[in-house]
C-alpha cells in the first residue's frame, strides 16, 4: 500500500542548532513534494516545493532535499529559533496531479 511516513515522535532541539525532519514514502512516484508548517488551531502554511528532478531547494534558513532513489525528503531549518516550534507536514503530489497526500507531520520543539 502507499505510505508517507514522518517521525511521529517530537523533535526537541536547542536554539541555534539545525533541525532536520524526514519524510519517507513508499509506492509513490511523486511529481513534486511540498513542506507545510502547521501551528495549533491553524491551517497548514506552505513553505517550500521541490520537483522530482530537483535535488535541493533553499529559502532563507530552510533547505529541502529530495532523493527519489531513497524515496526520501529531508527538511532542514538552520539556526533554529523558538518561533520555529510547530508541526511540519510533507505532502506529495503525483504526476497526474489529482492526488495530494499528506504525511502525519512531525512536531518540532526549539528550546531557548
Amino acid at each position: 500500500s502507499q505510505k508517507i511516513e514522518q517521525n511521529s515522535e517530537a523533535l526537541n532541539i536547542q536554539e541555534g542548532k539545525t533541525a532536520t525532519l524526514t519524510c519517507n514514502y513508499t509506492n509513490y512516484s511523486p511529481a513534486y513534494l511540498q513542506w507545510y508548517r502547521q501551528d495549533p488551531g491553524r491551517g497548514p502554511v506552505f513553505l517550500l516545493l521541490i520537483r522530482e528532478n530537483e535535488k535541493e531547494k533553499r529559502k532563507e534558513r530552510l533547505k529541502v532535499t529530495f532523493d527519489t532513489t531513497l524515496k526520501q525528503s529531508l527538511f532542514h531549518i538552520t539556526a533554529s529559533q523558538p518561533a520555529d516550534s510547530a508541526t511540519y507536514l510533507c505532502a506529495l503530489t503525483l504526476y497526474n496531479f489529482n492526488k495530494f497526500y499528506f504525511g502525519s507531520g512531525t512536531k518540532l520543539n526549539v528550546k531557548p
Partner: protein
Amino acid sequence: EAGVVQSPRYKIIEKKQPVAFWCNPISGHNTLYWYRQNLGQGPELLIRYENEEAVDDSQLPKDRFSAERLKGVDSTLKIQPAELGDSAVYLCASSLDTGNTEAFFGQGTRLTVV
C-alpha cells in the same frame, strides 16, 4: 488580500444531526479542496473542485457527506446525519490550479459530535 475564509470556527452537534461548513477561497483560485484532519494526523482529502466541477471525490463518504461549489467560488460541505467518528477539523484550501502550485488553507472548522 484576505486568505481562505471558513465558518464556523467551531461546531458542537449531537449525533444524527446535520451540519454544514462554508468556505470562501482566495479570489481567482480555480481549485478548491476540502480536507479532514484528525488529531495527530495529516489532512486527508475529501473532495477537490476545478471551478464548479468536482473532479476528485473518491474519498468523500457519499452516504452522508455532500459538497457543492456554486458558480465556482464559495463552497459548502455538509454532513447528514453526523456520527461520533466525524469529529475532526475540516479544512478548506484553494490554489490557482491543480498544477505545481501551493495550496492556501483556511483556519478550519473544528467539529465535535456528541
